[in-house]
């Protein structure tokens, strides 16, 4: 199954800039469907970016984060060719993970 995570990490002058787009409904639990039933909350709670067994970024998200969440963050200490692991888990316990190489 294709990953829900699309990521691009670029290193420039010692700083790695990472942009990720995650496919996820991020349903808030406040919206009703056309029949009037509440669409249950379904959103990513934790997303981590890991480099060499160290979390370089941790996001705690709630239902107010937009659908198909975008994230950009920046960190030092990594070099071109290094591998990163991006993982998430949502409020239903579903999860996904992907690796990316710093370009």
């Amino acid at each position, binding site marked *: 199954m294709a990953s829900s995570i699309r990521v691009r990490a670029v290193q420039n002058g010692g700083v790695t800039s990472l942009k990720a787009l995650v496919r996820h409904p991020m349903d808030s639990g406040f919206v009703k469907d056309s029949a009037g039933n509440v669409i249950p909350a379904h959103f990513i709670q*934790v997303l981590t970016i890991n480099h060499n067994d160290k979390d*370089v970024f*941790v996001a705690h998200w*709630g239902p*107010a984060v937009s659908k198909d969440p975008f994230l950009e963050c*920046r960190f030092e200490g990594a070099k071109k060719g290094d591998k990163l692991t991006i993982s*998430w888990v949502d409020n239903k316990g579903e*999860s996904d993970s992907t690796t990316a190489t710093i370009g």
Partner: protein
Amino acid sequence: MIDERRRGFLKGVLGVGVAGFALGSGIVPFRVEAATAPNAADWPKKAFRTPGVDETISELYGMDAEESDKISVDLPTIAQNGAVVPVTVETTLPNVTRIALLVAENPNALAASFKIPEGTLPFVSNRLKMAETTDVVAVVISDGKAYKATKNVKVTVGGCGG
């Protein structure tokens, strides 16, 4: 007939044996989903269910935040689509360990909270839902103290589907 079943069985056993060897020796990478999925245990449940900015900051960090002009909150003055409002927060405050984004007029103020480990820049860009015209507050923990900056956004079409 028995021979055929034996053949199939033996092939199966051989296949499993080779696969087991390959997996065990690390030649073939075997991803364990559970091991790579992040731990949701420290997701701040109560903070995500608190209305109001000051109450949320208190719930999240156990202290009040003071205004700081060293935090930049970049977002559109007018958001045409409240369901997707890009927000970028950056700060020159030192030793930042946490950043949080709060949307004052949302039913629960906390939208997102970030951990900034050492070596990571105090910068984050995200997209948030905003129910209506609102203040957006960025809270930064620097040297163990909480600071905040506020920016107002006019939302023309509310982002909660209503």
